[in-house]
C-alpha cells in the first residue's frame, strides 16, 4: 500500500520490527452491522473476563429483562454479567466455552419481547470514582482482546505518570471488519467515549491507531471532529502500516509513542493505556443510555460461510444460531474459530456461546488453509525476521526441546506474545507458537519448584 497522506493524520512515532504480510481478506468491510433477530434462547457464561468468577444472582424460573444483573461478585478484578434478552431462566449449569473450559452459565429462554430492565438508566457521574464505578457496572471488558475488565485497567494510580490514551483500531487480523464499521457508522459514539475517558482520567494525549488500509475510517473521524464543536481535536489519528500484528498492544504503543513496554510490565508502566475502539464506542453509548454490555458486533466470515456478515448479536447466542442466520456453509468448514485466523481459538464444534471479547467467528474452508508438512528447521531466519518482539523463535524452540531454563530466560521467551508471525513465516511448517508456550511453561514450572 502506498504511503498514506491525509492532512491531520499523524505518522507513527516508531517503526516496529518484523511482522507478517498476511492477506487482508476484508470482504465484509462494505457491509453495515445488521442486528440479528433474537434467538430462542441464550446461554450466558457467568465469567467472561480475566479475574474472579461471578456468582449467579438469579435462579431457575426467574423472569429477567434485558440489562438486569444476573452474575456479579465483590472481587475487584471482575465484571458483572447482564441478561442479554428478556425471558425466563431455564437452567444454571456448566457449559463449555470456546477455549474448552467449563464455566457456569445462565440459560435464558426468550419471551420475544426484549423488554428493558427498570435498572437501566444513565449513570450519574460527578467524580473519577463515579466514572470507574459506572464502567464496572456496565460489565465492560476489553472487547478486542483477552477480556480484561476495563475499570481495572483504568484504575491506575494518579501519580504513576500515565499520560497517553491509545485507542486500538488497527484491526490487523484478516477477515474482521467490525472495528472498521464502527468507525464508519458510529464515529460520534467513539469520539464521545474518548472524550469522557480523557475527561475523567486526565490523559494529556489521546491517539487512535488505524491501519492505513482504512483511509475512509480516518476521513470519517476527521470530518466528525471538524464538523462538531464538542469533538474538536478529541483524538489524534495515527496511520499505522498494514502489517500484522499492528493491533498487538505492545506494538501499537511502540508505533504510537516510541515507548517499549518491558516484559512483565503493563502499558501503564510506560504511561499508556490502550482501549479497543469497540470499548470506547460502547462507553460513549452507555454513558448516555445506561444500557450495559448485552450485545456486541462481530464479523462472520472466513470463506466457508454462505452469507458473510457483520452482525450485532446478544451475548450468549450460540455459534450454531449465528451461523444458521448467516445461511450455513457454502463449503465444508475445515476450522471454526473464535477471532481471526492468526490468533483465534479453534473450536471443536459450534455449540459454544458468544462471549464479550469475541469479535469474529471465522470459518475457513478446506482449500483456504495452507497445510505444510512439518520438516526440519533449515535456519533460514524467517522467524527471526518476522518476530515483532525481536526474539529468535528457532533458538527458543531448540532450548525448549532441551528444557534449558537458563537458555530460555536468556532468549527472553517470556517476551513472546504468541502473535504467530514466526509460525506463519516458517517454510518448514514448524509449530513455533506451541514451542513458545512450552518454553514459558518450562520457566514457570522451574520457578514454582524454587
Amino acid at each position: 500500500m502506498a504511503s498514506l497522506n491525509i492532512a491531520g493524520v499523524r505518522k507513527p512515532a516508531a517503526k516496529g520490527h518484523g511482522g507478517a504480510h498476511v492477506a487482508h481478506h476484508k470482504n465484509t468491510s462494505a457491509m453495515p452491522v445488521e442486528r440479528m433477530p433474537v434467538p430462542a434462547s441464550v446461554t450466558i457464561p457467568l465469567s467472561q473476563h480475566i479475574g474472579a468468577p461471578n456468582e449467579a444472582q438469579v435462579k431457575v424460573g426467574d423472569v429477567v429483562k434485558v440489562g438486569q444483573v444476573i452474575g456479579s461478585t465483590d472481587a475487584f478484578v471482575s465484571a458483572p454479567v447482564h441478561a442479554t434478552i428478556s425471558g425466563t431462566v431455564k437452567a444454571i449449569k456448566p457449559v463449555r466455552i470456546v477455549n474448552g473450559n467449563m464455566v457456569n452459565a445462565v440459560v435464558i429462554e426468550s419471551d420475544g419481547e426484549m423488554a428493558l430492565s427498570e435498572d437501566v438508566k444513565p449513570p450519574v457521574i460527578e467524580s473519577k470514582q463515579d466514572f470507574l464505578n459506572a464502567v464496572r457496572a456496565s460489565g465492560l471488558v476489553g472487547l478486542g482482546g483477552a477480556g480484561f475488565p476495563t475499570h481495572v485497567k483504568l484504575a491506575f494510580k494518579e501519580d504513576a505518570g500515565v499520560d497517553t490514551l491509545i485507542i486500538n483500531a488497527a484491526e490487523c487480523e484478516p477477515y474482521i471488519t467490525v472495528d472498521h464499521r464502527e468507525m464508519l457508522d458510529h464515529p460520534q459514539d467513539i469520539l464521545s467515549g474518548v472524550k469522557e475517558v480523557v475527561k475523567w482520567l486526565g490523559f494529556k494525549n489521546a491517539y487512535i491507531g488505524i491501519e492505513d488500509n482504512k483511509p475512509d475510517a480516518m476521513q470519517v473521524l476527521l470530518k466528525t471532529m471538524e464538523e462538531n464543536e464538542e469533538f474538536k481535536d478529541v483524538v489524534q489519528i495515527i496511520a499505522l502500516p498494514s502489517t500484522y500484528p499492528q493491533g498487538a498492544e505492545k506494538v501499537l504503543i511502540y508505533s504510537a509513542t516510541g515507548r517499549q513496554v518491558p516484559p512483565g510490565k503493563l502499558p501503564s508502566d510506560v504511561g499508556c493505556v490502550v482501549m479497543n475502539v469497540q470499548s470506547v464506542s460502547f462507553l460513549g453509548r452507555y454513558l448516555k443510555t445506561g444500557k450495559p454490555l448485552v450485545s456486541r458486533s462481530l464479523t462472520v466470515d472466513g470463506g466457508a460461510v454462505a452469507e458473510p456478515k457483520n452482525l450485532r448479536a446478544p451475548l450468549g447466542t450460540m455459534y450454531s444460531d449465528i451461523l444458521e442466520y448467516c445461511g450455513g456453509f457454502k463449503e465444508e468448514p475445515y476450522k471454526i474459530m473464535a477471532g481471526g485466523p492468526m490468533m483465534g481459538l479453534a473450536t471443536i464444534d459450534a455449540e459454544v456461546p458468544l462471549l464479550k471479547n469475541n469479535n469474529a467467528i471465522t470459518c475457513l474452508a478446506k482449500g483456504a488453509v495452507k497445510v505444510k508438512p512439518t520438516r526440519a528447521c533449515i535456519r533460514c531466519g524467517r522467524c527471526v525476521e518476522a518476530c515483532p518482539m525481536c526474539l529468535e523463535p528457532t533458538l527458543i524452540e531448540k532450548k525448549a526441546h532441551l528444557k534449558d531454563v537458563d537458555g530460555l530466560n536468556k532468549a527472553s521467551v517470556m517476551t513472546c506474545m504468541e502473535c504467530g508471525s514466526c509460525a506463519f513465516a516458517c517454510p518448514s511448517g514448524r509449530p513455533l507458537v506451541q514451542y513458545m508456550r512450552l518454553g514459558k511453561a518450562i520457566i514457570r514450572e522451574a520457578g514454582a519448584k524454587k
Partner: protein
Amino acid sequence: MIDTKKLTVSASPHQKSAATTTRIMLDVIIALVPAGIAAVLVFGLRALAVILVSVVSCVLAEFLSRKAMKKEDTVTDLSAIVTGLLLAYNLPAGIPFWIVALGAVVAIVVIKQMFGGIGQNFINPALGARVILMSAFPGRMSAGAFADTNRIGWGVDTVTGATPMGLVGLDGVKEGAPTLMEMFLGTTSGCIGEVSALALLLGGIYLMVRKVISPIIPCTFVATVAIFCTFAQGFDMYAVAYELLGGGLFLGAIFMATDYTTSPITNKGKLIAGIFCGVVTCIIRLWGSLPEGVSFSIILMNVFVPYFEDWTAPTPFGFIKEKKQKKAKEETKA
C-alpha cells in the same frame, strides 16, 4: 447442521505463508541453471555429465542413508539436488566420474546426514566434500585437471590451460591471462560452475528478488575482497577486477556463503560473516600457497557461526536503553 467430527482443531496461527522448504530449494535450483548452461557452453557436454552424476549420486545417497537410518525420507525437500549441483560446480570438468560420486557420498552421508540431516550440518556439504577431494586427489582437482578436458574429447577447443587465479598475485596480473570480458562471460578455465560471473550474478539477482537470500553476505563478501585487494595490490584496479571476476568468488559469495544452515541467522551476524570470508579469501589468495581461498574462507566462517550469532543476538523488545525510552516519553509529551 455441522458435522463436528470433520472440524480440525489446532493452535494458532491458522494461516500460513506460501513459503516452503521445497519451494526455497527449487528457487536455488532455478538460480543455478544459468551457471550450468554457461558451463556446458564453455566446457561441453562433459560438464553436463559431471553435473548429472553429482546430482544423481547426491539424491541416491540421501535416499539410501535416510532409509538405512530408518528416518523419514527427505529427498522431496530437494536439498540433495542443490548439494549435487553445488558440488559439481566446484569440480573441474575433466574429473573422473567415480571421484564425483565419491564426493557426493562424502557430502551427503558424512557431512550432512551423520550430523542429523538438513539444517544440522555445521559446514556446507558441497564445500566440505570439495575440500576433502582436494586433499585426497590434489592432481585431479587442481590446474592439471582443467587442461585434461580436451584430451577426454568432450571439451571445447578454446578453453584449456591453468585457472586464471594462478595468473594473478601480489605483483599484479601475469602475461597470458584472459581479458576481463572473457572472465565476466566465463570463457576461461576453472571449475564447472564458477567461470561465468554473468550467469552467477543472474542467479543471485533472482534469489534476492525472490527474497530467498539476503544481499548482506554476497555484498559484504565481494566488497571486502575489493577493498582489501585495492590496498594490497597498490591500487592496481585491473588486478582488483581480476580478483573479483576470477576464481570461485561469485559462486561462493552468492550460493555457498549464504547457505541457511551454515551462515548466521541474524543480519549483523551475516555482515560479520561476509567481511570475515572476504578477508580470509584475500589472505589465502595473496599470501597462501593455494591460488584460491574462497572455499576455505567459507568453511572457516561456517565453524564460527555459533559465535557470530551469539555476539549479534538481537535485543528483545522492551529491553530498550533507558535514555531512548526517556526521549520517546518526552517527544510524545511535547
